[in-house]
Every structure is written in structure tokens, then in C-alpha cells.
């Protein structure tokens, strides 16, 4: 049968594929029939298939990538009309016979054998090929290192580090990070303070790489930046303050388990990659993109160790106790990042209380120390309840709201006891509050979250910024999308 000359075929094979090896006689027959109208591309070994005179070396995978080959063998037929391409893959004798119009093609072979994965589908290959042959996605300025320059040291010397080693942000690593989100690399997410530099998803990805994030953490990183850019979080002021505070990230919802965050033993400590690197990524973004460098715009007197990273997940193992995200209007099935302008961790040890009323008094006494025991209404706080204390509270039938109300009540203090000069101490509340009964926290200024290991009657306080509330920073939440 004569083939019309305006039809061309391309066959893509690899030697390592048993199906490709099986159909070698078929390839020989096709080559003989179609001669120059058939091109055979081989992905791994240009000496294969031997039956063909001059197989085309596609070990670079350029042809395979450009033609989106997923399976070998793939046989492509190109007609002379636009969009007239059709293709078959694997070995299905009847299908190949119909496709090529050769009735006895491969008649000596078995009827069917599935193909193998194309080498373009090998793990990690997609980003390599996209960089080599795909549309140019990355826009960031390229920084070429000197030949003998150590790439880790280079990042320090260019001022990109928080003081710890960063992962050098190569284009390949950034491409892989970008695969963690379906958002476009050039999407503008906002302007990062203090420089208010326009920031793209790509710039976030570069910093997430440097922080050590896996691509699956990236949506959480993006969301943390969106939260930080909410006006009521006041990121610019928080960065400039001489006070200790810095963003504290708390993550709720299914994402916690999906990406393996720690809401259990040592949740606020070291050792979990997601906790450590998501919090660090936000700090690096503020440093590198925003330009918020200690001693520059960042004027903290002491700072706090959480300025490297301060990120943990809430323990949501008890459905009857509302999560922080639920307090802020979200559903338990939502994945949410909350940001709080906070610092440090002040322990609350209470191993004796067996009822909520008693335990709440311990908690209130510790909360009184936020900022200064004589300063009220300045800073918000997060009460971090450990699972054992949560059990004590729930055994007494208390909800989170009950606990919060009891704490506000317990902390109510006559102004006369805490005004300036009271107790022989010049610091304190202005004298105009002498006749008032004062609340330690503004309305909505005390947040409650649960995390930590199942053993240990140790809760904690994360003190807030002295500019909490509408005049400064408020806790913000943002849903991960």
C-alpha cells in the first residue's frame, strides 16, 4: 500500500523499555515502509534500535519534552493539516496495524504489552527540562559566583542569611519550589515592608528555598506573607520596634497533618522541618525582599530567638475544643495561618490543680507578667494550653470562652495598685486610672491555643507587642488556598 507523502511519522523509544525491545522488528518494518517519512528518536542509547540505520539521538530529551511524551514507545502521525496530529503508545497490535495501515504489522508478536514511562517523566526531570527547553518563567536577577567561590559562603557574604546557613537558591531548586503552588511565578502578591518592594511568587519561592522549605510547604509560606501584609497586622511597625516582638505563626487545619507539622512533643522547639522552615521563610522574606535588616530598620533592643523562626501547629485532636482558627471564624476543615506579634515563651507550671477554677488562677497570675505586672491593656497575649491542662479544664465542663471569662475576671485590678508610684515603683499605669478597675487585656486581646505533648502540666504565655490592638498589631488569620 502506498502512503501519501504528506504524512510523516515520529517514533519515540528507549532501549531500557522491554516493550520497545519487543517491537524492534515492527520498527524495522516501519522504517522499510516509510523510509524518510519516519523518524525514530531514542531517549537513552543512540545505538538502539539497531534495525534502524540512523536513529535520532534524543538523550537531551528535547524532542520528547517538546512533544510531551509520557510513554514509550509513542508513535506520532503528522498530517499536512493543522492539528492533524494523532498518536498511539505502548504496543497494541490491532491498533498499530490500523494506525499505520499495515495489515500484518507485528503479526508474529503478542497482541498487547503496555509501554514504559518516558524518561521525561523520571522524578525531578520535569523542572530540569522546563529550565532547559521550556518558556522562560524565572525573572529574578541571576547572580554568578566566581569559579572558586563556595556557594554557601556566597550567600552569607551577600547578606542573604539570617546568620544560619541557607540553601543556595539555584534556578532548579526555585522551579521545584514553584511546583508547590498553582499560582503563577510572576503574580504580584503585594509590597513587602519596610522597603515596600513589589514582591512576586517567584521571590517568595527563592526565599522559601533558602529557608529549607519543601515545595509542599510553599502554600503555607505564601499565606503567611499574605497574612503579614494585612493592614491590621502592621508588619512595618512591628519590624521597626525596639521591642522584642516578631511574627509568630500558628497553623490550623488539615494542612498540619498533610505537610507533617508538629503540634505534639516539643511543638515550639527544634526538630520539625515544616515548623522550622516555614517560620524562617517569612523572616527571610522580610529581610531579603522587604529589606528589614537588624541594625537597619529593625531596631530591636534585644530581639528574641523566635526571630529566626517561630512557627507551630495547634493540636486539634479534641473536636469539642475550638481551635484558634475557629475562634476567628473559620471552619475546622479550613487550613489557616494565623500571625501574632509576639515574643518568647513564659512557662506556667501547675501540677496540682484538678479543677478549672484553680488552674485558671495559675494562668492568670502568669498572664499578669506580660510586659510588666503594673502595665495593663498595652499588649495582647496568647495563652498556650498544654493537652493535660486542656483535659483539666474540660473535665470541669469549661469551654474556651469560660476560661477566657474567668481569666479576665481574675485579672481585674484596681488602678490604685498599679498606677505609677504604687508599691514604690515609678513604672505603672497613668495616675488618671487610680479610681478605675482595669483589665489586663483589651477586649479580643487574649488568644487561646493548644499544642504540645500529652505528658506535662506545663502551659505557657506568648506575650504580645506593646503596640497591640488597633493602634498597632492585631492577630490576623488567612486561609490557605
Amino acid at each position, binding site marked *: 500500500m502506498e502512503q501519501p507523502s504528506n504524512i510523516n511519522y515520529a517514533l519515540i523509544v528507549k532501549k531500557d523499555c522491554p516493550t520497545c525491545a519487543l517491537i524492534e522488528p515492527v520498527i524495522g518494518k516501519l522504517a522499510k515502509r516509510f523510509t524518510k517519512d519516519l523518524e525514530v528518536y531514542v531517549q537513552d542509547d543512540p545505538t538502539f534500535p539497531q534495525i534502524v540505520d540512523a536513529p535520532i539521538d534524543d538523550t537531551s530529551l528535547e524532542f520528547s519534552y517538546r512533544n510531551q511524551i509520557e510513554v514509550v514507545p509513542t508513535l506520532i502521525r503528522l498530517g499536512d493539516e493543522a492539528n492533524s496530529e494523532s498518536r498511539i503508545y505502548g504496543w497494541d497490535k490491532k491498533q498499530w496495524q490500523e494506525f499505520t495501515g499495515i495489515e500484518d504489522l507485528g503479526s508474529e508478536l503478542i497482541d498487547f504489552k503496555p509501554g514504559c514511562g518516558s524518561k521525561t517523566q523520571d522524578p525531578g526531570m520535569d523542572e530540569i527540562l522546563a529550565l532547559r527547553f521550556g518558556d522562560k518563567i524565572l525573572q*529574578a536577577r541571576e547572580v554568578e559566583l566566581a569559579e572558586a567561590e563556595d556557594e554557601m559562603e556566597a550567600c552569607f557574604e*551577600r547578606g542573604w542569611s539570617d546568620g544560619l546557613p541557607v540553601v543556595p537558591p539555584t534556578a532548579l531548586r526555585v522551579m521545584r519550589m514553584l511546583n508547590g503552588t498553582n499560582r503563577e511565578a510572576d503574580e504580584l502578591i503585594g509590597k513587602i515592608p519596610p522597603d515596600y518592594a513589589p514582591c512576586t511568587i517567584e521571590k517568595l519561592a527563592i526565599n522559601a528555598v533558602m529557608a529549607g522549605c519543601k515545595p509542599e510547604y510553599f502554600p503555607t509560606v505564601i499565606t503567611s506573607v499574605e497574612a503579614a501584609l494585612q493592614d491590621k497586622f502592621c508588619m512595618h511597625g512591628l519590624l521597626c520596634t525596639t521591642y522584642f516582638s516578631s511574627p509568630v505563626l500558628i497553623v490550623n487545619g488539615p494542612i498540619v497533618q498533610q505537610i507533617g507539622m508538629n503540634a505534639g512533643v516539643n511543638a515550639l522547639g527544634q526538630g520539625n522541618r515544616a515548623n522550622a522552615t516555614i517560620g524562617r521563610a517569612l523572616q527571610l522574606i522580610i529581610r531579603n525582599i522587604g529589606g528589614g535588616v537588624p541594625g537597619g530598620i529593625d531596631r530591636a533592643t534585644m530581639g528574641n530567638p523566635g526571630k529566626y523562626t517561630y512557627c507551630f501547629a495547634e493540636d486539634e485532636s479534641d473536636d469539642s475544643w475550638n481551635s484558634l482558627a475557629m475562634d476567628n471564624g473559620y471552619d475546622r476543615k479550613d487550613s489557616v495561618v494565623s500571625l501574632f506579634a509576639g515574643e518568647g515563651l513564659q512557662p506556667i507550671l501547675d501540677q496540682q490543680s484538678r479543677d478549672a477554677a484553680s488552674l485558671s488562677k495559675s494562668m492568670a497570675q502568669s498572664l499578669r507578667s506580660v510586659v510588666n505586672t503594673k502595665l495593663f491593656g498595652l499588649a495582647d497575649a496568647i495563652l498556650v494550653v498544654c493537652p493535660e491542662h486542656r483535659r483539666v479544664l474540660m473535665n470541669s465542663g469549661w469551654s474556651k470562652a469560660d476560661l477566657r471569662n474567668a481569666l479576665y475576671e481574675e485579672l481585674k485590678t484596681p488602678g490604685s495598685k498599679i498606677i505609677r508610684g504604687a508599691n514604690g515603683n515609678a513604672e505603672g499605669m497613668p495616675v488618671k486610672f487610680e479610681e478605675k478597675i482595669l483589665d489586663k487585656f483589651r477586649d479580643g486581646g487574649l488568644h487561646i491555643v493548644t499544642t504540645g505533648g500529652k505528658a506535662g502540666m506545663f502551659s505557657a504565655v506568648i506575650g504580645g507587642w506593646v503596640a497591640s490592638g488597633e493602634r498597632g498589631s492585631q492577630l490576623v488569620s488567612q486561609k490557605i488556598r
Partner: protein
Amino acid sequence: MNTQTTLLDPTAELKPVERQLLPRLASLDGSTVGLLDISKPRGKEFLDEIEKQLLEMGAQVKRYSKPTFTRVAPTELTQKISVECDAVIEGLAD
């Protein structure tokens, strides 16, 4: 060892990619300038003249020397200079 590594700039690209010089001294008056003799012949005479001029300009001068010009300065020496001086002039050749 790497041959040529290319990294992507993580910053907002507000500054040139070349590494920047450290800030220069606004004035020599009251500052301490270190003179580092790298131990090549006649370095001393050259640096003596520099010292004379610096003193006239109101700077204080401290003198240092490398054990040998063939090697980089020992870490202890560079640390000592960085702690004791606001700027340093290095005598590089004979």
C-alpha cells in the same frame, strides 16, 4: 569544587549585584588608622611618611606588620586591627 554556579537574587534588586564597599570614613579627625607593613623592603620608610601626613590630618595611627609578605595576614592580626582601628592602609609593594 563548583565550576560556575548561578544563584537567583532573593532580594528586591534595589542594589547592584556587585558586592558593595564598606562605608568610608566621613573624616580622619579623631579616627584611628592602622598601617599594615606587609614586610617588603622599604615598606617602613613609605609608611613612616604616610603616618606623618595622617597625624597632621588629626588621625591617630597604629602600626602593624605581617610576619611575611608571602602569606595572608594571620587571623589574629586582622582581628586585632579590626578591633583597634577605624580604617587600615596596607603597604602592598616595594
